[in-house]
């Protein structure tokens, strides 16, 4: 089974004309978790959105080694952001079934698709099976969050991009979620999580983001591109 490796080199990102990320480098492989840390507004969410392909990067490369060559990094990934992507007028089961049908499963390393759960199994695991036929609009914030997690379980994708995954969850649900993330890691999955709370996960690496300084904003004006090519050469050398 070939291993996956997500490699980011010199990633930079501009939001609203301001540089929020500069020279972000990391590597994370199968069965590993990367915890992105840093104070509010430092660009944790932006980094995840860049990896998910939702925000264009200004510089740098993001590559996935060992994945399906014809698919982008985003197509190997589940993005679990602040928004739950639920339709309040559809039932819990309808919401989940739709995403199950819609998402194209991406194979784990070795081309083997991991066993995925059925919708009801996933809801049961997360303790919201009793709400299956209720409209999603009636769920509490924590229940909506759990339903959103269920989406990650019903479609196999090797990379999980988690943005503040434990927000709105109570202690017990948090434990369940951390258990599910740990299962994913043990099964050969790859997790990138942005958080300001400590997450208790196995095989963890840390990436500490710090605010982009004014110096690097000057670099944005001119020297940045050269910088990036310099790095490239070093890597090749």
């Amino acid at each position, binding site marked *: 089974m070939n291993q996956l490796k997500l490699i980011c080199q010199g990633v930079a990102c501009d939001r609203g004309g301001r540089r929020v990320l500069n020279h972000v480098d990391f590597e994370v492989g199968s069965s590993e978790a990367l915890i992105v840390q840093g104070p509010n507004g430092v660009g944790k969410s932006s980094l995840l959105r860049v990896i998910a392909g939702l925000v264009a990067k200004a510089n740098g490369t993001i590559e996935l080694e060992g994945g399906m060559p014809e698919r982008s990094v985003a197509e190997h990934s589940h993005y679990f952001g602040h*928004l739950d992507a639920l339709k309040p007028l559809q039932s819990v089961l309808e919401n989940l079934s739709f995403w199950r049908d819609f998402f194209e499963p991406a194979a784990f390393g070795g081309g083997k698709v991991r066993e995925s759960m059925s919708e009801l199994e996933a809801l049961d695991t997360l303790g919201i099976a009793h709400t299956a036929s209720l409209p999603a609009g009636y769920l509490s914030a924590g229940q909506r969050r759990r339903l959103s997690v269920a989406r990650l379980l019903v479609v196999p994708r090797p990379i999980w991009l988690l943005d503040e995954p434990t927000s709105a969850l109570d202690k017990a649900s948090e434990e369940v979620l951390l258990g599910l993330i740990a299962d994913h890691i043990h099964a050969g999955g790859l997790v990138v999580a942005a958080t300001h709370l400590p997450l208790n996960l196995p095989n963890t690496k840390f990436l500490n983001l710090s605010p982009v300084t004014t110096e690097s904003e000057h670099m944005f004006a001119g020297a940045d591109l050269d910088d990036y090519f310099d790095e490239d050469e070093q890597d090749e050398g």
Partner: protein
Amino acid sequence: MSWMKSLFVREYQLANRVGGGALIGVLFFLAVVTIFPFGVGPDMILLSRIGAAILWIGALLSTLLGLDRLFQADREDGSLELLVMSGRSLELVVLIKCAAHWAATGLPLVLATPVLSLFVGLDFQSIVLVTLTLLVGAPALTLVGAVGAGVTVSMRRGGVLLSILVIPLAIPILIFGVSAATAGAIDSNNFLVPFLFLCALTLFGLVVGPLAAAAALRVSGD
């Protein structure tokens, strides 16, 4: 293939469950069409001459009514991000969303047209022609509108801007639609040319609409 069916079914259901669904559009259509005789006066000859145009304009405005939510609702709840990164062709996603939106809101307008035609004094042949031209031409309105909906997706009150953007683009559709409907009523030889142009516009919209709307949605994540 099954994902397309799931998307269509979901979009159709949501379009029908939100805010009265098809009925709201038809009622708005009814309101626009019934207001004309009050403005123009009870002149049946005049009304029947401009009747096709009234129905077409009514259908255009009713189509624009719900279009601003086509992608905006998905953007607000985060679904749009997942649609974009799902690995499915975004152009196809847009096309299916347009098809479902049209089936839920456009088709009822076409079905209501024969009844509303009576309000403006159209004869039987004209009723058939107006309904036929709307059946062929109204999808083009939805497809052009989808481009506007894609461009204005990140604006909180994009509905008005959407209309301002889309109405000029809808002019050719309106011209050929109305001229096919009115010319056909006078002389059936004059029907075919504008009608074929109308068909061409719809086919053109089928290709360009999804491409343009998908391109707009791709950059909306920023």
